[in-house]
């Protein structure tokens, strides 16, 4: 074999070896690929986790999340309006040890368990008083027969009750023999039940309303976590080698609400609504004149029918944007007085048989007035007292007819054009039909003057009247005064003004006089005899019906049966001479053939509220100033043996002590201090001398 042939032979052998190696490698990879596919199929289709194996992969530590305790919502005096505490649901596994007892073949064990279940039923019936012992026993034993592993015993049980239930027969034997199952859930407790519930609100998943929602970031707190390891005693303890974030409980919110005010207002309004099946809802707001702090905010309403429960269903004070009726006449009057168009309330205007030219309706009240008085003019004051639409239309058309924007500028300066910032979100946006807007017509100016064509919330109205009560300084209403943590104030919200001067003090005084006159001589005389003088204005407005309510009717204010929805309002402040609180009450009717005036139900509710607030404490002029000095003991009693001492001005105790020290006897009449004595001071005393004292 030549050298060349030998090289060729070597090359062929090398190639063969490479081929073999490559063949086996490819075979190996093919095998591995198949193995992977088989393994995937095995894991997906037939593999079950072996706990012993999986335990080896479990971490030796577990993450434990600590949930914060939600902060409280407090009333202004610190009484809690909302507190967080867990409640417990109790269930029972009725099947516990049933199979085990059956395997032993001893009926006695099963009978003993069932007897304990009957004993337990008696205890449960006595504790919860919702079912008889027999009913509880039947439920448990039937549950055992059909294999119920999760029989509901009771929901929303507090801890004290739970602790008691844990000691009941069978349950005290724990989950493995007694079948005792407890589930804990955090709940919000409202100690005053429905009181101010709409203001307090709630946070339930996506449903968030009221202060609970607005101040959720403060109330919620921050979750914490720690890593825990198991000890040799099988107890979980904190793993000190791991990181930890401490849980931060939520902060408390101190509101401006006064529980007593809220309670009184709620009760008074409730009585007025419940007395009449045609009243759908009622609201009340009490605001501190000087600061704008809201002391009570009641929103009571029924459902679609009068039979439904009266409850805080919706925040009408904040959201119900509507035409407010005659309470807006005060707004017009303030503008007229402030602009100098009405210089005095005794200023007269012609009556014109109640007609204002330009398409306005006739005011029949003016015809009555003309008939009764025989006069052809009327004072602004009287027009305000009887709440004449004619008078205010005439004034608006006469003084603002050529420059309507001037009147609307006033409305904007009273913040009627915006949903201003408030502690609860969702304030309704007002609607003002000013010149240039699509709904502006030739009668809009006049109707605006008496409370139509402009829609605002009751809170806007109360805030404006509060400005009058506060001599022109319109304060921003607020509900939260501070954020606190364990009693320490973290943030304080000070009162602030929405408009530091909506009118001069003189204008405010003039308008207050008119408002006082409405109560004394006008449409709100039901408040005349209230225990504190009230100044305010009534308002009755028709409510625009929804298309569904209207049916086939073409009138936006009435349905096909001619029924209308009304809202009657009284808004004012008290005491009228030195206003401390502004109050607004509105009642809303179902569609009705009757009228609901502000001078009736709202005025009656306010009277009850004012009378009760008057009696609440002694701040209302019930202070007696001591004008005469009470007898005071100014000197020590001088005792000289054998002489009757001077006891005038001393109390009985001191006088007796003095006489007994000198060995004398005493007779006295009356109570108080010694006014006179006999014998006279300094008289020589006999043996066993008796001194007669007159006390006054």
């Amino acid at each position, binding site marked *: 074999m030549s050298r060349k042939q030998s090289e060729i032979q070597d090359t062929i052998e090398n190639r063969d070896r490479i081929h073999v190696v490559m063949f086996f490698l490819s075979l190996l990879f093919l095998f591995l690929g198949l193995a992977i596919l088989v393994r995937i199929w095995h894991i997906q289709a037939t593999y079950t986790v072996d706990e012993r194996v999986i335990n080896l992969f479990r971490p030796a530590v577990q993450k434990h999340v600590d949930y914060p305790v939600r902060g409280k919502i407090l009333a202004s005096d610190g009484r*809690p309006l909302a507190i967080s505490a867990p409640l417990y649901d109790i269930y029972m596994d009725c099947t516990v040890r049933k199979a085990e007892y059956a395997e032993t073949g001893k009926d006695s064990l099963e009978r003993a368990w069932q007897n304990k279940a009957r004993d337990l039923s008696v205890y449960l019936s006595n504790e919860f008083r919702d079912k008889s012992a027999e009913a509880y026993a039947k439920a448990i034993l039937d549950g055992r027969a059909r294999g119920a592993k999760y029989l509901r015993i009771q929901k929303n049980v507090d*801890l004290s009750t739970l602790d008691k239930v844990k000691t009941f027969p069978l349950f005290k034997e724990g989950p493995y023999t007694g079948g005792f199952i407890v589930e804990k859930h955090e709940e919000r407790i409202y100690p005053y039940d429905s009181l101010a519930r709409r203001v307090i609100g709630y946070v339930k998943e996506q449903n968030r309303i009221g202060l609970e929602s607005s101040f959720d970031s403060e109330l919620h707190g921050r979750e914490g976590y720690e890593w825990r390891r198991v000890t040799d005693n099988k107890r979980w303890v904190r793993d000190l080698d791991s990181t930890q974030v401490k849980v931060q409980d939520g902060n408390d919110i101190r509101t401006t609400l006064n*529980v007593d005010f809220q309670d009184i207002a709620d009760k008074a309004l409730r009585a007025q609504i419940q007395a009449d099946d045609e009243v759908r809802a009622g609201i009340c707001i009490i605001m501190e004149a000087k600061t704008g702090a809201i002391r009570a905010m009641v929103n009571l309403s029924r459902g679609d029918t009068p039979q439904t429960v009266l409850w805080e269903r919706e925040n009408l004070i904040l959201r119900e944007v509507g035409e407010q009726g005659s309470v807006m006449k005060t707004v017009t009057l303030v503008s007229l007085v402030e602009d100098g168009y009405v210089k005095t309330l005794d200023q007269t205007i012609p009556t014109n048989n109640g007609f204002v030219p330009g398409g306005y309706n006739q005011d029949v009240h003016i015809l009555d007035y003309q008939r009764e008085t025989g006069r052809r003019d009327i004072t602004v004051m009287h027009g305000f007292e009887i709440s004449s639409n004619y008078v205010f239309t005439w004034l608006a058309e006469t003084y603002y007819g050529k420059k309507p924007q001037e009147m609307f500028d006033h409305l904007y300066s009273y913040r009627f054009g915006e949903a201003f910032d408030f502690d609860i979100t969702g304030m309704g946006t007002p609607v003002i039909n000013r010149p240039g807007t699509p709904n502006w017509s030739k009668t809009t100016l006049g109707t605006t003057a008496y409370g139509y064509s402009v829609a605002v919330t009751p809170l806007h109205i109360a805030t404006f009247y509060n400005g009058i009560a506060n001599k022109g300084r319109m304060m921003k209403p607020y509900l939260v005064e501070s954020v606190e943590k364990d009693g320490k104030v973290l943030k304080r919200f000070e009162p602030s003004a929405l408009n530091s001067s909506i009118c001069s003090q003189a204008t405010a005084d003039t308008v207050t006089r008119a408002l006082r006159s409405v109560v004394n001589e006008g449409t709100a005389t039901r408040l005349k005899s209230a225990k504190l003088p009230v100044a305010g204005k009534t308002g009755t407005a028709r409510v625009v019906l929804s298309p569904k309510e209207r049916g086939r009717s073409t009138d936006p204010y009435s349905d096909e049966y001619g029924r209308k929805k009304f809202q009657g309002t009284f808004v004012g402040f008290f005491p009228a001479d030195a206003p401390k609180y502004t109050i607004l009450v509105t009642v809303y009717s179902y569609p009705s053939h009757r009228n609901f005036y502000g001078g009736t139900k709202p005025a009656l509710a306010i009277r009850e509220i004012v009378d009760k607030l008057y*009696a609440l404490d002694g701040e209302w002029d019930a202070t007696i100033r*001591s004008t005469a000095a009470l007898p005071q003991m100014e000197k020590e009693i001088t005792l000289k043996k054998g002489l009757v001492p001077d006891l005038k001005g001393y109390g009985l105790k001191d006088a007796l002590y003095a006489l007994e020290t000198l060995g004398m006897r005493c007779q006295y009449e009356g109570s108080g201090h010694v006014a006179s004595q006999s014998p006279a001071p300094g008289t020589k005393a006999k043996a066993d001398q008796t001194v007669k004292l007159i006390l006054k």
Partner: protein
Amino acid sequence: MNLSTLWEGIKNAFKALRNGEFLLRIRADKYYMHIMYLFLLMWVTILLSLQVDKTLTKAGDNQAAIDQLRIHHAEKEAALVKLHSASAAETRLKELGVNLTLPQEPATVIKKK
């Protein structure tokens, strides 16, 4: 060191262990104090670890007790507050058949001139 030497050493070690001479052979007596000190340290470490576990367990139990007290406190507070309103007092008085009502006039305050 070759393999035979290593094997010889292992055999000797086993023999020494069997005869109870292993520690003497390796002259462990020279390090007696160190070994004892090491044992002491280990004992102290184990003891401290057990004490830490015990303390942490106790702290956990105490925290649970505090949580229970907090819940009890919140429940009692709510129950008490519920009674602390004019309406609740009026209702309770009515239930008890008492004629007492809320005051109709404010309390008179006497102030010095």
